[in-house]
């Protein structure tokens, strides 16, 4: 990884650690949404902030290489997932966007509640990350 400025070492090293924690926290927020504060929107924004911090610490080229997928595509994928979740329930004869949940026993985690609402939230998450990053990057790249 080629460094842009030699005196950013402290920042970059600490960021490598911190962003991991932020990513982890955002992932936690995303999953915890159903029972605790959090959810797709907050989780998505948090992830976007983490990526943003990375962009602040490193230069554009490095991060584009490290995170090699297009944020614009992410918006589309997120929307598709959200809509698909809604349509799934229609296939079984229920109204659009009906969710189902049940409790399952997993070997390691014990009893876990799984719900289709999580897929919907995943769609929200992806759209939020994609949109926030697309907007900020579009404006930032224009700077050049």
């Amino acid at each position, binding site marked *: 990884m080629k460094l842009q400025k030699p005196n950013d070492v402290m920042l970059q090293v600490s960021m490598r650690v911190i962003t991991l924690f932020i990513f982890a926290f955002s992932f936690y927020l995303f999953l915890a949404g159903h029972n605790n504060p*959090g959810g797709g929107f907050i989780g998505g*924004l948090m992830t976007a902030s983490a990526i943003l911090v990375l962009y602040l610490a490193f230069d554009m080229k490095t991060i584009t290489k490290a995170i090699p997928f297009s944020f614009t595509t992410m918006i589309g994928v997120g929307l598709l997932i959200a809509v698909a979740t809604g349509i799934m329930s229609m296939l079984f004869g229920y109204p659009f966007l009906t969710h189902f949940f049940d409790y399952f026993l997993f070997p390691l985690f014990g009893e876990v509640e799984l719900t289709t609402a999580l897929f919907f939230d995943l*769609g*929200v998450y992806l759209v939020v990350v994609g949109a926030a990053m697309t907007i900020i990057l579009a404006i930032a790249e224009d*700077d050049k």
Partner: protein
Amino acid sequence: MTVLHWAIISPFLLAILVPFLYKYGRKIHTGWFVLLLPLALFIYFLTFLPRSSAGEVVLRTVPWVPSLGINFDLYIDGLSLLFALLITGIGTLVILYSVYYLSKTKEKLNNFYVYLLLFMGAMLGVVLSDNIIVLYVFWEITSVSSALLISYWYQREKSIYGAQKSMYITVFGGLSMLGGFSLLYTMTGTFSIREIIANIDLVTTSSLFLPAMILILFGAFTKSAQFPFHIWLPDAMEAPTPVSAYLHSATMVKAGIYLVARFTPVFGGSPEWFWIVSLTGIVTLIWGSVSAVRQKDLKSILAFSTVSQLGMIMSLLGVGSVAYYFYDGDNALYTTAILAAVFHLINHATFKGSLFMTAGIIDHETGTRDIRQLGGLMTIMPITATVSFIGLASMAGLPPFNGFLSKELFFTAMVNVTEYGIFSVETWGFILPVLAWVASIFTFLYCTILFVKTFTGRFQPEKLSVKHVHEAPFGMLVSPAILGLLVVIFGLFPNVLAYTFIEPAMQAILPGIMEPGQQFKVHIYHWHGFNLELWMTIGVIVLGAILFITMKKWSQSRFYRKERDIFNYVYDSGYDGLIKGSQLITRVQMTGRLRDYFVYMCAFIVFLIIYTMIRYDAFSINTANVSPIEPFMWFVVIAFVVSIISVPFINNRMTAVVMTGVAGYLVALMFTIFRAPDLALTQLLVETVSVILFMLVFYHLPELRKEKKKPAFKLVNLIISVAFGVMITLVSLSAFAFGSETNFTSISQYFIENSKVLAGGYNIVNVILVDFRGLDTMLEILVLAIAAIGVVSLIKLRFKGSEDV
């Protein structure tokens, strides 16, 4: 569809064919093809004559919009048959005349005959319709086609002006007439004229009687060029002469007369109708005749004379309307006026048609219509001179022509008015015969001027552009000669019309007066002793002659030299004022500055809401259910208020952004205090991201400059923003008070109870977002996606340099 319906539709069908006939039959003048139709229609309508004179009526129905009661009903009685025969008969003659008048090679004949046929069909529809909506439709087609005909030579500016003017005025009348018809429908619940007349009590007792009457009269007065709407008619003289002869003497201008006659059974008998119609008519009569004296152009004289003669017929209809309620048996006192109106209607159509045609001939052969350049044409154009003389003498009211008879009847009717003893005619009624008599003097005067200046005196070929002046070709003379012949025939044997045309028409105008089978007495005769009417006629001739002999003296006066009607000035300045006024309003209102539009919107919202709240006395403050305020909340609120208030005073962009961020974080703090962790988290993150965005974007903008604005500008901003804030606060307080008074139970209880049971989640906010109200969330992320795509396309796909979108 019956034959009668096809008879009305046939001109429209032929109008579709005319362009083909024009294109593929160029060797023959298109007019010859067109001529056959009105002739056939004339003969067809003549076959109704025996039935109509026997007092029978014909009704043919075809449904058009049956659910609304709008049917293509055609109704033939004496009045509509008279008009139908006038339209088709004079239509035939006018088309014959136009064949010789309009050049086959130089003119766009296809346009001309299409418009003329449209007009003819529409006019037939107007007079034969029983349904007022159908009548209105045809009425507007006559307005449109007449505007097209006036602007036939559309390269001339004056034609366009005349067409516009006639369009505006007649369409104004047409629309108010539609309003009157709608009122009639509200009163009676039917669009059929027959049924309205049958339910006459519903109309006369209604409070809408007067508005409906006035609105319908607007339609009639504008179409028939009554005072002060007559100004379009002289300007319509820019049309080709066959059009003037047809539309502006015999048919279209009589549509208003027809309407008044048709609605006499509905509105007649009321003092308002009597006075409005008679006074408008008599004022039009005198105004038109006086104005005609001042004109120097042949067609202008004839135009004003048409205005004046229409006023005469109109006033007769007004005076005769009393007969509808005050008829006593045999007494002809009340019905004379209607008799005179119908008789003069026929007479006017004959002599005015022929006069326009002769004026057209003179124009065609000499190249001018200015009476100051014409003169001495009697020996050069003897036939034209003879026909003109017959027409003018008839118009002036000289025996033995038909104009004399109708004028005598007119005087009789007007003199009789004072004997009615109703509608307070005994006090002001004398004004009608006096004005009528004065107007007749001027009528005699302009007829004399027209004849003497054109046909006698010295021939001045040096003033004319045409080298070799000669009599018109035979074909051109046929139509005016036929009309002139009719003038003489009706003058010598007026009683051929009596029970064929006049009496059935009177029955139609005054239905229900006579018992079935009875007839009005119609006997028109030349000699009725030395009575008042005869002395009046002699007075007209003597005074008119004196005025003409002394013409040299008064022709120098300013009055005589000014040709334009004073009301044109009103119309023109009104038209200009309308345009200038609307431009002014647009300039004041549409400044192009966003701030101004924002001021309008905010001021309007504030006004609207505060007005509504005061109107319903809705302001209230209820502190009963207010939660206690913890001391630390005060600090948060004060900090928030300070940060918000400071923003407008900051002169640096970055500081302003940071200050807004501070306000945002304080909001997040408030969310925390009010126990909304999800909201607080979202607010924190969104605020952060948006502050970063602001920083990124504002980095490119120039430094904030101190805007120098007038104190008034700032004061307005201040007042509006304070008013808006106060308004929102008051509305919120009132809404809160309203909520606590009505005790609506909140829906949130349901979510609290069911979020675990139905959706399996403890975070109620999230469960609402993804489960209970998932659709909202789905659309919100769509909004987000669209915003992102919007930003990308704005930035990446923008045009380079100064390219415009």
